């Protein structure tokens, strides 16, 4: 409501700026010839000052004076002052004036109604973060935690809480940084090291790199029973092509895992796939708690799905802008498969292959990767 009042006041002010001069009394103005004469007189005065100061020699001064005089004389021959306005002219003038006064509100309100969003209030970030936490979305809660940590970067517990949330949101780089901060501030722990490893692997599209392996090994050193670390180290073996050793490691895990461990399913799945021609690098590299769908328990299922969809759409967007990112493409394809959007997954695969060329190494990698997810390219 307030907005409309302000808009109305602004429009009124703008219209008055047009209306008042039109309604004002018609002042006479000197003709342009008179105006020129004044300018020349001013120049003559300036010339005299210059000559008095000695800036200009007497000969030059005389010459310049003669020239200005010539200009003044020439003025007399100039055309007489503007012609008087006749009846038809005053009709036109009235018409122009009317149209102008009407144009201001019509154009502004007409155009604004087309392109404006009058019902959307301003939403400064600080106001949004100051809302009651119960009304906030996960994104907003995370942003609030980030703001808190930006102000208190040495709050190790804060990083520790935020890191797994980042992991679930697939913000792997942030998750890795958060885990590192937690380890730096609150000390080493198997859970943190394993989380760090998972974050590094996630950032690389599921590839368990040397850095990630280091982290997992550190975790095992602290807690030999850490299932996540064992699982990923086996995955690393599988990714290196040492399928048999990987299978053996997983088998060993099955022997030691408690019967109700959430890792059982993942290990069995991995074992089943390791029998296949090529080990799916990324797909199985997701432990159960990173199965992105199973996000924060505080979220309703609709929220969760919306969050994931936004994240995937964001990734898709990023790849449209920066398409030469093989890991990104694999993550996108996998995400679509996980969401059950097979058509979109296929489309993403097609685009990924198109980016790198059908006969490139990447394209072959993509095809194999997709096959491991049970997806075939359209061609």
């Amino acid at each position: 409501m307030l907005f409309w009042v302000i808009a109305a006041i602004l429009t009124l002010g703008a219209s008055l700026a047009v209306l008042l001069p039109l309604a004002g009394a018609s002042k006479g103005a000197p003709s342009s010839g008179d105006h020129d004469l004044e300018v020349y007189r001013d120049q003559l005065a300036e010339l005299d000052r210059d000559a008095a100061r000695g800036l200009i020699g007497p000969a030059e001064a005389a010459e310049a004076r003669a020239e200005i005089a010539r200009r003044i004389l020439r003025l007399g021959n100039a055309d007489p002052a503007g012609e008087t306005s006749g009846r038809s002219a005053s009709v036109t003038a009235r018409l122009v004036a009317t149209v102008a006064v009407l144009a201001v509100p019509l154009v502004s309100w007409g155009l604004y109604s087309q392109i404006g969003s009058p019902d959307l209030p301003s939403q400064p970030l600080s106001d949004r973060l100051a809302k009651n936490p119960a009304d906030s979305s996960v994104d907003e809660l995370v942003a609030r935690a980030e703001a808190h940590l930006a102000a208190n970067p040495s709050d190790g517990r804060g990083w520790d809480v935020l890191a797994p949330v980042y992991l679930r949101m697939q913000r792997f780089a942030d998750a890795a940084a958060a885990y590192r901060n937690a380890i730096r501030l609150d000390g080493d722990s198997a859970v943190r090291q394993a989380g760090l490893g998972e974050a590094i692997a996630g950032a690389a599209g599921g590839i368990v790199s040397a850095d990630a392996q280091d982290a997992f090994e550190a975790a095992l050193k602290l807690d030999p029973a850490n299932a996540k670390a064992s699982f990923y180290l086996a995955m690393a073996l599988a990714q290196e092509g040492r399928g048999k050793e990987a299978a053996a490691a997983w088998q060993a895990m099955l022997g030691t895992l408690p019967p109700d461990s959430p890792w059982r399913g993942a290990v069995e799945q991995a074992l089943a796939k390791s029998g296949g021609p090529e080990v799916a690098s990324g797909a199985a590299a997701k432990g159960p708690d990173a199965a992105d769908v199973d996000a924060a328990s505080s979220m309703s299922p609709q929220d969760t799905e919306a969050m994931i969809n936004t994240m995937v759409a964001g990734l898709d967007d990023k790849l449209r802008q920066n398409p030469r990112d093989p890991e990104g493409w694999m993550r996108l394809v996998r995400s679509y498969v996980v969401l059950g959007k097979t058509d979109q997954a296929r489309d993403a695969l097609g685009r990924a292959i198109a980016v790198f060329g059908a006969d490139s190494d990447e394209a072959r990698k993509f095809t194999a990767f997709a096959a491991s997810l049970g997806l075939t390219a359209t061609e």
Partner: protein
Amino acid sequence: MTRKQKRLSVIVGGLAFLAAATSLTFYALGQKASYFYMPADLTTASVQPGQRIRLGGLVEKGTIQRGQGATVAFSVTDTHKSVKVTYTGILPDLFREEQGVITEGTFGTDGVFVADSVLAKHDERYMPKEVADGLKAKGVWQESKSE
């Protein structure tokens, strides 16, 4: 000289000046403009060793080798062909494997391109425009149809 002759000589002088400037400009355009090539273009174009050109493409994966001091060797590829490049100096911040790059310099007699400047200048797509256009022309890179 009469007034007319004076005016004429001023006009002639001005025109001669403009003619000289114009011919210098076009001479310089012919001499100093450097052409842009992608590695695959080099087979058809005849580029002499010592002729200054700009070579663009993607930094081939796994080819970056840091040598003595600040000298770096890498290959520039357009996925069809690739060319070895050496460069001494600091690589730009956006120089990465599989990212677009433009190098400027000359070919040595051994067929290695010696670059004296490396640009990884980018637009929002992180791709130098010539490289993007060249890759598109070769059907390697497709601009996603954004809505």
